[in-house]
């Protein structure tokens, strides 16, 4: 049975395998060839020792002879040995589905296999029994030890599960408490999108989810580009990525109504991204600059289009930056205007008035953020309009890679060794 041998041959690779098919098939075949297995299990399981009934031996021997499979059985018993030594000792708790009962099973089969071999080759020579006993006893002891270890590992694993479960219930309670305190947190984890995600925490969660999906889409896009997918396939994926971008702008808008400072200050981004943030997000002109190099070859018209787009967004960005500067100056003047010797009633009224004015000015922050996001959105759409589908795909990949490098840089920086 060539298939039998080959499947037995690959059994040693049991890392991370809960069910090793070769092991199973080996077991199956052995069960077939040594048909008294069940009987023996019933009688010898309890004792833990393996006194061997002569009945079993003869039955096995006869089976072996009928099959004419002596070499294979030898091979099989050595496989058992390997299993006993390496697999059982090294298997992680996760992979250890066998119980001590299984070990006993194996021990019995081992003995049966051994006996069948010795029985078939030299059934009349009693002097071999001594050597058999020593070898077998050693092997049995090893198996018992392995079984004990696996029991301990299982216990540890179950304890780990229990503590995790406890932690989970604790977290759920905290979440419930937080909800009651008025922080809106989007419902269950398996909601496809959070509705009305107000509050900083809720947005952070939504953003993390958005980023995960974005990465998945980009991987799909990358695969399609590398596989030279058709125009239609590529276009649908590109459209998907672009509309997903629109989704984050929409979410930012909603979150900004609840907490504009959280969005504007980029607390939801990695530190490196946050440092180089422009009005709560990426700077369109910067991305276009990097694209101009990545996207060659471009037609004359396309190159001009991209350059004009870059210039326009630069001008728009400058205008918005100037507007923000004006806002900050205006705010400073307003707050400074309320400074003065405290105590007099006139000053208190003045203070209140100035604060009210300052509050009004802060209200325009949301508008600035919206304009900035609008700019980013327009940039992506215009870029898509100017470029071919394939170029748009490569552009989106380049943008993604650039931004994820920035994120990775942030992590690397935070984890760098310090004296």
């Amino acid at each position, binding site marked *: 049975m060539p298939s039998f041998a080959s499947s037995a041959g690959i059994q040693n690779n049991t890392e991370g395998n809960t069910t090793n098919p070769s092991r199973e098939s080996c077991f199956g075949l052995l069960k077939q060839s040594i048909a008294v297995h069940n009987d023996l299990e019933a009688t010898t399981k309890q004792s833990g020792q393996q006194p061997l009934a002569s009945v079993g031996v003869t039955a096995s021997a006869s089976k072996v002879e009928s099959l004419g499979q002596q070499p294979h059985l030898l091979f099989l018993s050595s496989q058992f040995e390997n299993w006993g030594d390496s697999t059982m000792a090294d298997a992680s708790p996760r992979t250890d589905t066998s119980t001590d009962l299984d070990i006993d099973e194996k021990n019995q089969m081992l003995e049966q296999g051994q006996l069948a071999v010795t029985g078939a080759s030299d059934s009349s020579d009693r002097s071999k029994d001594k050597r058999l006993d020593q070898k077998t006893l050693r092997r049995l002891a090893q198996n018992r030890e392995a079984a004990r270890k696996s029991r301990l590992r299982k216990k540890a694993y179950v304890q780990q599960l229990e503590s995790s479960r406890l932690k989970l219930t604790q977290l759920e309670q905290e979440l419930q408490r937080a909800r009651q305190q008025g922080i809106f947190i989007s419902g269950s984890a398996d909601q496809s999108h959070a509705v009305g995600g107000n509050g900083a925490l809720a947005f952070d969660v939504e953003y993390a989810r958005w980023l995960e999906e974005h990465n998945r889409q980009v991987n799909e896009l990358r695969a399609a580009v590398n596989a030279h997918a058709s125009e239609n396939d590529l276009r649908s994926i590109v459209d998907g990525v672009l509309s997903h971008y629109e989704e984050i702008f929409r979410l930012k808008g909603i979150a900004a109504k609840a907490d504009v400072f959280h969005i504007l200050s980029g607390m939801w981004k990695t530190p490196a991204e946050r440092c180089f943030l422009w009005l709560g997000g990426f700077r369109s002109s910067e991305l276009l600059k990097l694209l101009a190099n990545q996207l060659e070859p471009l037609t004359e018209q396309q190159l001009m*289009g991209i350059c*004009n*787009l870059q210039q*326009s*967004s630069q*001008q*728009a960005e*400058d*205008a*918005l930056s*100037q*507007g*923000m500067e*004006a*806002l900050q100056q*205006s705010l400073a003047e307003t707050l400074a205007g309320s400074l003065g010797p405290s105590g007099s009633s006139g000053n208190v009224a003045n203070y209140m008035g100035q604060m009210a004015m300052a509050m009004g*000015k802060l209200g*325009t922050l949301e*508008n*600035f953020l*919206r*304009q900035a996001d*609008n*700019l980013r959105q*327009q*940039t992506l759409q*215009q870029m898509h309009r100017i470029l071919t589908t394939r170029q748009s795909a490569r552009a989106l990949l380049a943008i993604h890679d650039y931004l994820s490098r920035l994120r990775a840089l942030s992590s690397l920086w935070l984890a760098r060794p310090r004296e």
Partner: protein
Amino acid sequence: MDRVLRLSSQKAVVIFSVSSCCMCHTVKRLFMELGVDAAVHELDQDPKGRDMERALAKMLDRTPTVPAVFIGGNLVGSTDKVMSLHLGGKLVPLLRDAGALWL
């Protein structure tokens, strides 16, 4: 309303603004960057400012009403409209047609 319409056609580019509005400042800066000499009317400094603001609100159908941009006597819109036009490469041709730019 009449005043608004009259003022809006007095120059190629007319911006209705409020002096304390920072978004208006943004739009003014943009046109300045493009080399456009726009006529700016600060509603808070105009005696008929409130009426004008009401008229603009009707035309724009949004808040805030400022900044409100007219090019060639026609209402273009507010900040986002101007930005979109510019990114789409359509603002400059519009300005040229209205005679606000000669390049």
